[in-house]
């Protein structure tokens, strides 16, 4: 068997080995020298014989065929991209498919252009017409051509490169194929489409996908328990308060003492005591029906005192339901005092316009409130004299006392600021007294403490009403609610106290001890 020496380590190997059995270096080149070229050019112009490969004679047939094909391709003239595309289409058998690497829009343009050219018949060739005369090459080009062919190194290195067959560079090797390479369109370099994603990112992707998908879906609301601890707490507190109040009503024990009167209560009592016999009092019922329990209870002793004094009452209201409340209030006291509408009192009804209309009381009252709630002409007519409570009254300044029963701070303020200055300026005896809800006490007290006073006396809430009744010796008017009121308040305070102690000590009891936390730590 013939041997071949390794070009790297120099050791002998059998000639059928592709790589060296010692250093794995390639023994045979991948591209063998062109045999045709070698055959055609056994000796160059310089007389130096090209070295021939010893294995050239033993090249397999398939490889020789491939090399012949390459030679034939190299010898062919450069072809256009259309021709190459046509060849590819023929080879793949898919004439309509888009060549690889060509963008769609370029391919469509090319197809349309090709169709346009297909309609145009080529002109018949004119054999008699001679072709262009070959141009005379310049000397420098001729010298390059001669020089290239005369250089042995270049000739050997360019043996595999194609030879230019046409044009002024005909016969030169290694000429750049302008038509084939420049006009051939290339698509963008393809990048690997697969992203490298970490496991953590995959988790986040799944979460985001779930979020987006869940956006469009209706989620069922969490079912609340029909009876929760909050419900039990509320019902328990309500039950405790209500039971305590009802118990005190059903089983009354030792009656609780009424509270001592305050200065403002005593001042109001003094004002009523000083009313002249048959004095005229304007009473405004400016509270809502929801507040009737507190205001009626607080005002009962005061109105009772007015009736004891024999005062003529004029009832008005700036709320739509006030006149009905006033009627009801007078009826409650009817069994004791027998006040008659149109005789001892007159109900002039509702003053529209809210607090803005209070100014009208300072102007012409007969014009502002001409009729009673029953529809009678309050200020007299041809067939009827002026009603006794309104005799000599033209405006609010003519009353001996103005008493306002009110639960709204804005309304109370309007009475003080809009009406009281007129009362004080009209008559030195004129006064403004109030029976107010307990929540209004901080609002009204500054007007009472002012100098001069803008409110001359007031009763605040149930406590004020009870103290007024005690002051006036009419305890039976308030006894029905005073004990129950006290029991309810006491139960409320007890509940808050127990809850406060429980919630303040519970975290201390449930807090883990120091030894436990150290063991866990």
């Amino acid at each position, binding site marked *: 068997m013939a041997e071949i020496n390794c070009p790297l380590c120099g050791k002998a190997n059998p000639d059928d080995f592709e790589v060296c059995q010692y250093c794995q270096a390639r023994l045979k080149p991948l591209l063998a020298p062109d045999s045709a070229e070698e055959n055609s050019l056994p000796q160059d112009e310089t007389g130096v014989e090209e070295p021939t490969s010893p294995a050239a004679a033993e090249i397999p047939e398939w490889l020789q065929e491939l090399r012949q094909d390459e030679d034939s391709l190299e010898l062919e003239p450069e072809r256009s991209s259309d021709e190459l595309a046509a060849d590819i289409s023929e080879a793949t058998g898919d004439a309509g498919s888009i060549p690889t690497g060509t963008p769609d829009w370029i391919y469509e343009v090319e197809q349309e252009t090709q169709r346009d050219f297909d309609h145009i018949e080529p002109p018949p060739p004119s054999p008699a017409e001679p072709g262009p005369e070959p141009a005379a090459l310049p000397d420098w080009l001729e010298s390059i051509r001669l020089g290239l062919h005369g250089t042995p190194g270049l000739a050997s290195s360019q043996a595999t490169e194609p030879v230019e067959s046409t044009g002024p560079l005909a016969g030169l090797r290694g000429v750049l194929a302008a038509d084939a390479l420049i006009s051939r369109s290339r698509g963008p370099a393809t990048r690997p489409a697969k992203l490298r994603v970490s496991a953590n990112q995959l988790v986040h992707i799944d979460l985001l996908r779930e979020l987006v998908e869940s956006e469009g879906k209706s989620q069922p609301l969490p079912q609340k328990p029909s009876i929760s601890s909050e419900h039990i707490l509320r019902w328990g507190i309500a039950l405790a308060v209500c039971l305590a109040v009802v118990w005190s009503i059903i089983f009354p024990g030792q009656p609780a003492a009424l509270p001592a009167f305050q200065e403002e209560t005593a001042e109001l009592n003094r004002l009523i005591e000083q009313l002249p016999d048959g004095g005229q009092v304007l009473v405004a019922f400016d509270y809502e029906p929801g507040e009737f329990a507190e205001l009626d209870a607080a005002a009962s002793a005061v109105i009772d005192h007015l009736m004891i004094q024999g005062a003529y009452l004029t009832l008005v209201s700036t709320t739509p339901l006030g006149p009905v409340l006033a009627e009801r209030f007078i009826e409650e006291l009817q069994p004791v005092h027998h006040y008659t509408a149109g005789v001892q009192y007159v*109900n002039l009804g509702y003053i529209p316009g809210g607090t803005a209309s209070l100014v009208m009381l300072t102007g012409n009252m007969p014009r502002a409130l001409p009729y009673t709630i029953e529809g009678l002409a309050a200020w007299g007519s041809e067939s009827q004299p002026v009603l006794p409570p309104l005799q000599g009254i033209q405006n609010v300044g003519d009353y001996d006392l103005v008493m306002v029963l009110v639960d709204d701070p804005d309304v109370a*303020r309007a009475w003080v600021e809009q009406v009281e200055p007129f009362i004080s300026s009209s008559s030195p005896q004129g006064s403004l007294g109030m029976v107010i809800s307990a929540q209004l006490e901080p609002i009204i007290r500054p007007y009472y403490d002012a100098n001069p006073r803008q409110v001359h006396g007031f009763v605040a809430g149930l406590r004020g009403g009870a103290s007024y009744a005690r002051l006036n010796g009419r305890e039976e008017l308030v006894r029905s609610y005073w004990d129950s009121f006290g029991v309810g308040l006491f139960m409320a305070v007890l509940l808050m106290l127990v*809850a406060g102690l429980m919630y303040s000590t519970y975290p201390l009891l449930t807090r883990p001890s120091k030894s436990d936390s150290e063991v866990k730590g």
Partner: protein
Amino acid sequence: MKFPFSVAVAIGIGLITLAGYFLNIPVLQTLRMALIEWATTLAAVALLVGIANLFTIHWNKLTSGKVGGLYSAILIVSLVLTLGVVGWFGPTHTYSKWIFNNVQLPVEGSLLALLAVILVVAGVRLLRLRSSMLSIIFIITAMVILLATGPLFGISVPGLTELRSWIAQVPAMAGARGLLLGIGLGIVAAGLRVLIGSDRPYRG
């Protein structure tokens, strides 16, 4: 700047009414009272318009078959019934008083009575949800006021009544005075805005 006629009317009437308070000029006084009478008349008409609007809204709700139509039906029946009874017999008739004493008063009184229970629940829950120093002070103050307001059934707590009076007359009144000052300044500012046309609440 666009200066419509309505703005001029509003500013003019506002200035006349305001001047009537300060200047003792008979013409101004007469004008002021006349304008206020108009305002009260318009307010009375507005009340009727409000009732008509309420009726229309609930009638539409009832006829369109929306949810809550039953409540609208109850409201309309109650409104028509009360209007008919009071309009026909008068507001002081026994029937009218019966409706007021047995429907209106119990309903509104019951709603307000719930407030007492709700406030007790809120007081109980306050320390559980927010047990801060301010919450404790608030609860203690409320308990002192409540205890000193009602009877103590023979229990004598010295100084409790005096403490309640001090709370009501010093800290509470200080806050109330500040509130009143704020309200006064706010009203002046609002009035001036209307008078100079900067605020136009009458614009539709």
